[in-house]
């Protein structure tokens, strides 16, 4: 599903954010990406989302060389990826329902079909009863779950999460991780960047370890 070949990324004249990264992720796999802040986790995810191009090497996702994409193709590529952000990136001027419906609106899904899928996604994260609420009325755990619902509403084949549990207490974090495992169980490839080592080791999935832009560990699932 994801292939990194000798990938390096340098921002401006500073030292390398990523250096000679090599790994492969199979379809339907679930894995963690870990390391201290500044180790290059976010940079790596940004490369997969094609927000940036690598300075060296190449990145392939679902068989596509991301470097070869024409600018106009990128939006269509991004629709195949669900992304969960640490700060959830919800829009505060519209309801929970409208937030989750956003990817479907962008893809031009028929309203009735869209409503059905939004409710299914909200039900999955256990927040169907809050569909008319505004994000401001929700707790941070709830907001993160809405962010997840939005990421999965168009059934992406790849789900990326950047520190999804960064601001949550251990109990809520475990709940969120369980959600990711559920999506992985139905065939979605899931990649979660997190520095919460205690949680990661408990979950027994493959772990990619980054340190100062280099891949220093690739531990298979126990």
């Amino acid at each position, binding site marked *: 599903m994801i292939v990194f070949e000798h990938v390096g990324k340098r921002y401006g004249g500073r030292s390398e954010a990523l250096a000679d990264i090599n790994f492969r992720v199979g379809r339907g796999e679930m894995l963690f990406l870990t390391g201290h802040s500044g180790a290059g986790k976010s940079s790596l995810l940004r490369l997969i989302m094609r*927000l940036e191009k690598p300075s060296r090497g190449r990145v392939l996702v679902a068989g596509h060389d991301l470097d070869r994409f024409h600018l106009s193709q990128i*939006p269509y590529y*991004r*629709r195949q990826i669900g*992304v969960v952000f640490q700060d959830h*990136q919800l*829009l505060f001027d519209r309801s929970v329902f409208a937030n989750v419906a956003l990817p479907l609106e962008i*893809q*031009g899904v*028929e309203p009735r079909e869209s409503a059905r899928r939004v409710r299914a996604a909200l039900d999955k994260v256990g927040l169907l009863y809050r569909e008319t609420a505004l994000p401001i009325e929700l707790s941070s755990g709830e907001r993160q779950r809405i962010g997840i619902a939005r990421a999965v509403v168009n059934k992406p084949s790849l789900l990326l999460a950047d520190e999804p549990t960064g601001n949550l207490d251990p109990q809520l974090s475990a709940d969120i991780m369980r959600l990711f495992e559920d999506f992985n169980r139905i065939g979605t490839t899931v990649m979660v960047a997190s520095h919460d080592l205690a949680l990661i080791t408990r979950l027994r999935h493959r772990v990619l370890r980054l340190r100062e832009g280099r891949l220093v560990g690739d531990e298979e699932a126990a």
Partner: protein
Amino acid sequence: MTRRTTSPEGQRPARRGARASQVGLESRTRAWLRHHRAMCLDSARRLAKRPLSSLLTMLAIAIALVLPSGLWLALDSARLLDAELDESATVTVYLDTRLDESATMDVAARLRDQAPVAGARLVTAAEGLAEFQQGVGLKDALASLEDNPLPAAVVVTPADTDPDAVRVLASNLEAVDGVDEARVDLAWLERLRRLAELGQRLTLALAGLFGLGVLLVVGNTIRLAVESRRQEIEVVTLIGATHAFVRRPFLYSGAWYGLGGGVLAIVLLTLGGHWLSAPVTALAESYGAHFTLPRLGLGGSVLLCFCSTLLGWLGAWLAVGRHLADIKPR
């Protein structure tokens, strides 16, 4: 990825591809239209949510539109006046004073037969004197003269009122036997034409400048709107929105601003027309002319609204294009 197929398509695998792509295109077109409608309404709603600032922007556009379109109207009416004046372009041919009455008639007939002459009216010396007395009010002074000093004249109306053609005609007429002098007073007509041309160019230049002004006003307003919706733009870009999708609401906002500005400009022009019409008519009447201020009319109003909407849309397009490049998701 798995895709659920609903009904009969599954049973006809051979035709499935064609069917699917047809359905795909149809539903994509529907989705596209749906989004256009939604954004059209949504941008109108956003404008209505802040009525005062929207109105001020529209007013700024309207004011920029009023001057060139008002000038254009004035010029249009000047053209009407010009056409009327064309008819009064005549050549006055003074005949030799030594001709007797029958010779005078002869010469007048010959003048009438000249090629590009549309009409010729003989003014005998006696008639000329009578007109002169009436017009100038020198009755007593003229009455004291023993002889009529005035020549007989023929007022010739040229078929072609082009200044050069009239001048050629005059020199031809002068060559006719028994003609003393052919006089054309074209200078003022030409001056008027030049003035009209100047006005036309001035209007075009002003229209260009003020059109640019409209672009800037809309552009600046849209720039602020883009800035205030920056987070939303970042998020939708992250989850796969195309540039067209992001641009669409702003383009509609620009078009609404333009349309509102156009309508306000029509209102201003109509009010201004009413306000000026009485003194203009009175002024024209004092010159013995019948002249009323022209109105924009339905066609003109539609054209003005169309142009202003287009300008608004264009301004938004330029502004969004310029600022979307700056907005990159973090």
